[in-house]
Structures are given as C-alpha cells and as structure tokens.
C-alpha cells in the first residue's frame, strides 16, 4: 500500500491540480464544457502529475511553474485520450461513455484540440527554452508514435526495435517528460533533469509493457473489454511478439490474424495459447529489466524522501494489475 502513502503525502497538491484542471477545462460552450468536465470526473491515476510533483522535490517544489507543468501534462494526456478514442473507435473508457460515444467524432476532435491548445497556452509563459524544446519534441513524437502504431497494425514481421520505438513514443516519452519537467520547473540543473528524464523513460517503457501484458492476462472486468483486445485489433505487442518469434506460434497466430472473419472461439483459443506459452514470462522479464534500469538511475540521485517514493512507484509498476 506504499503507493497509497505517496498519494496521501501529495494529496493537497494533487487536489490543487484537480482544481486547476477544472478551471482550465471550463469553457463558455455547453457541450465543450460538459465533455471536458466529464473527462476530468472520469478520474485516472494522475501518475504523470504525481511524477512531476515528486521530481520537483529535488529542487524548489513550491515554484508556480511546477504546478503549471503538472496541470499541462495532464491536459496533454486528456487531449490525447479523447482523440485516441476516435482512433480506436472506443465507446467506453474507465467504464464511462467516451466523448465520441456520448456526442460524436467531431465533438471529440474539437474538444481534444481545445484542451491541447489550453495546455500549450498555460505553459507559454515559461521563460525556459530547454523546457519548451523538450515538451514540444515529446508532443511531436507522441503523434508520430500513434501514426507508427497504425502503420504497424497486422505487420507481424516487425522486429523488436520497431515495437520498442513505438511504445517509447506512445507512453514512455510523456512519463520521461513528466519527470524532467518536475526537475527543470523546480530549478534543478539540466543534469538532474536528464537523469530524471531517463528514470521516467525506463519507467514508462515498463509501464507500457505491463499494459500489454495485462491486456492478455487481465479479466474482462479488470480491463473493461475482452482480453487480447490489442491482438484482435491487429496490434502486435510484446507477448505476441515473443509468441511469434520464440515459441513457434507463427502459423497459429497468422491463421486468425489474417482470417477476414475469425470466430470468437478462434480468438479466445489463440489468446489463451499466447498466455500459456511462456511469452508472458518473457515480457515480464523485459519489463523488469527496464524497471531495474530506472532504479539504477535513482541510486545516483540524492537519497531523499522523493527518491524512495520514486522507487516505490517503480515497484508498483512492476506488480500492478490495473
């Protein structure tokens, strides 16, 4: 329950973030206002702002720029979720109707663009070129990562490097940025900022790998959708990669993947086979290797309360089941 302790310690600041998010999302148009505030109420782990707050403890965490960075990161994340739901044609997120399901794709596009612009406006006052270079690069790479994901759908021949680059852009970069921004916004040196960037990067890689594993081993209740959703959508993630290339399941997987009208039972049996072949253990091993790298970075940082909290977050990532 150490993660709960960390959240408790940051409770008042996280509460401030929620209230600032609410102000940032308020809009003078009823549908936009409702769509934005629904997103906020849907909640989430707020892992990115939490990382920013913790990393800011290496400098002066009371600086206004820290709070603004944390809010901006969550806004960017929210904007990308609204658009992702259109890309994935998802009607539910965290058990609630998505913006595109409640209204339509167009509302989702306008809402995401509006929130994204709010996020950029919020941080445009920062007088720090390094921060802007970093944020803008990550935002650009996030969109490139999403395009890559579409490009690689059903490409079962893709190599491990392609998968790693994809999840780096999709997830790890924003976590890396969350950590680096906490450091830079609180006045830490670029060196500390870079160390924390890599901590966040390794953590994010492991986070996404864990997500990809959970997609196979989670229950429908935990996932809010049937297991194996990634593969059903043609997305070759780590467990499938190992099953294809290490456990000789190429023909079995391709027979379903390339079937124009596969039966539900075909999907279920191939997902079950991937789960049982050893691919999950291999994926866990790789995820753990990234977590070890993250923890090694922490050893080089000043050993303070924040360092312990970051290590505990890394431990949580390795064992999480939601």
């Amino acid at each position: 329950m150490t993660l709960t302790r960390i959240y408790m310690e940051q409770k008042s600041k996280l509460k401030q973030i929620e209230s600032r998010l609410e102000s940032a999302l308020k809009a003078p148009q009823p549908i936009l206002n409702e769509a934005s505030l629904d997103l906020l109420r849907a909640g989430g782990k707020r892992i990115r702002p939490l990382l920013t707050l913790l990393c800011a403890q290496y400098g002066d965490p009371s600086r206004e720029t820290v709070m603004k960075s944390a809010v901006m990161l969550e806004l960017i994340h929210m904007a990308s979720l609204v658009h992702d739901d259109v890309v994935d044609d998802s009607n539910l997120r965290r058990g609630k109707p998505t913006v595109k399901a409640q209204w339509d794709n167009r509302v989702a596009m306008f809402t995401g663009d509006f929130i994204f612009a709010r996020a950029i406006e919020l941080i445009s006052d920062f007088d720090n070129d390094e921060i802007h270079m970093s944020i803008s690069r990550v935002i650009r790479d996030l969109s490139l990562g999403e395009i890559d994901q579409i490009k690689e759908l059903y490409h079962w021949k893709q190599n491990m490097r392609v998968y790693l680059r994809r999840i780096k852009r999709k997830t790890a970069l924003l976590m890396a940025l969350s950590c680096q921004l906490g450091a830079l916004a609180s006045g830490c040196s670029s060196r500390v900022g870079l160390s924390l960037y890599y901590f966040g990067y390794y953590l994010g890689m492991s986070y996404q790998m864990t997500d990809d594993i959970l997609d196979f081993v989670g229950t429908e209740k935990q996932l809010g959708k049937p297991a194996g959703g990634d593969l059903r959508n043609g997305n070759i993630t780590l467990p499938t990669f190992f099953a294809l290339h290490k456990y000789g399941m190429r023909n079995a997987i391709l027979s379903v993947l390339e079937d124009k009208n596969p039966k539900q039972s075909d999907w279920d049996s191939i997902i079950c086979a991937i789960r049982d072949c050893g691919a999950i253990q291999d994926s866990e091993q790789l995820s753990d290797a990234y977590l070890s790298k993250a923890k090694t970075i922490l050893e080089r940082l000043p050993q303070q309360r924040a360092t312990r909290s970051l290590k505990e977050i890394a431990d949580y990532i390795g064992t999480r089941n939601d």
Partner: protein
Amino acid sequence: MSLNEELELVYQQLRNELNHDYVKTILPEPVIDRDKLMIYYLLFRRQESRANAGVYAKSVMVAEIGLNTHEMITVEKRSDMNAIKMRQLTVLSGDFYSALYYYTLARQSNMEVVKWVAQAIQTFNLHKFAFFYSETRLSWPETIEIVMKIESALVEKLARQLGFARIVPYLNAYFLIKRLVIERKNHGKSERDSYFSQTIQGRFEKVTDRLDQEIKNKVAHLTHILNRQENHSEWLIQVIDYLRDQLSRLAEGVEEGTY
C-alpha cells in the same frame, strides 16, 4: 528575390515539412492555402528577417492545417478497413501538424506567437461548436457570420497582435468569400471537400442560390472597401493590392459561374 519567389520558397519548405512517408500513402496531401500563407508571411515580414518571417508563417499555417485536417473527420459508423484507416490517420496527422507548430516555434524561442496561436485555436474551436452544435436555430446571416469567424480566427488574431488591426475587415471578408466559393463549388460532394454546406443543407432551403447571392454581395462589398482611397502605409498598400488581385481572380469565376 521577388515577394512571389519568397512565398514560393516558403510554400515548398512547408510542403516538405508536412510530408509524412506513411500518411501520404493513405490521405491526400494537405491543402496549403497560398493566400493565407502569403498574408501570414506579410504580417511577419514587416518586422522580421526573410528567414524568420518564413518560419513563423509556416508555423501558423501548419497549426491551421492541423485544425482543417480534423475538420475532415467523418462522424458516421464505418466498417471497411480503408475508411477506418483514413479516419484514424485524419485524427493523427492533424495531431502531428498541431504538434509541429509548437515544435518549430520553440526552436525559434518565440513563445509569444505560440501563445497567440494557442489562444486562436481555442477561439476557432468555440466558433466551430457554435456552428455545429448551436442551441438555437441559426439564421442565415448568423451562419455566415460564424463561418467568417471560423475562417479568420487565426489570421485575425495574428493581425491584431502584430498591430495590424486595420486590415482585419479586409481579411475577414476575403477569407469568407474564399470559403463560400469552395463550399459552392463542392456542394453536394463528399464530406472531405466541404465542412459546412453539408451541415446547413437541412437547415436552409436553396443553399446553392443563397451561396451564389452571398458570394456576389460579399465580392461587391470587399471590392468597394479595397478600392476606397485612404491614407495607407506602403506595407498596407502591398496587402491591399495582393487581396485585390486575388479577389478579381475569384470574382472572374463567380461572374462566369465556373467557380
């Protein structure tokens, strides 16, 4: 180098920057409005070097292209793989273009322009909501007014922030006419070709007749204000001459009904 050659250079650079090897295999090349690009360039060129003005003009244009790309999103259920992929990439390429504007301006350390564009994008989206999801039934003049605000959201913001509020009425009128002509030309075609004439089809009768009349009125009005003898600066005269030339080309098509 003449102004037109400078613009051509900026245009080609922008085309290259928008180029994405995979996206271009699925989606049509994004449309770059040369008139908007020219106006952005002229707005910045007044105070900036040729190189800087080019970078700023491209950045604002790319943000606008991001928004225009998202306008193309389809709302109905699709099941064939190609249509799904097109929709997915419409979302993601729009996001990519929106990200590019901040990326480029951050490398120029020009956060002021980043802020103006971010504010203009919010205004643009609010107008879009007002157009598509108005709580009351919009009259024809209200509809046209909102379309004008949508079309000029970014260019108006830039002109005002850079101290050229005087040219805003010209820009508003010109870019509205341009949009009306595009909508008239594409009326009845696919969603990708127009954003509003499909939407107002159910709201008004005789949409094409209304568009024809509106275009004629607006062209006459803009021609009149562009030809007014006023004490303009050399720079403003350059902008007015450019708009006058472009308008006469548009008007020619309108006169002939060829659009």
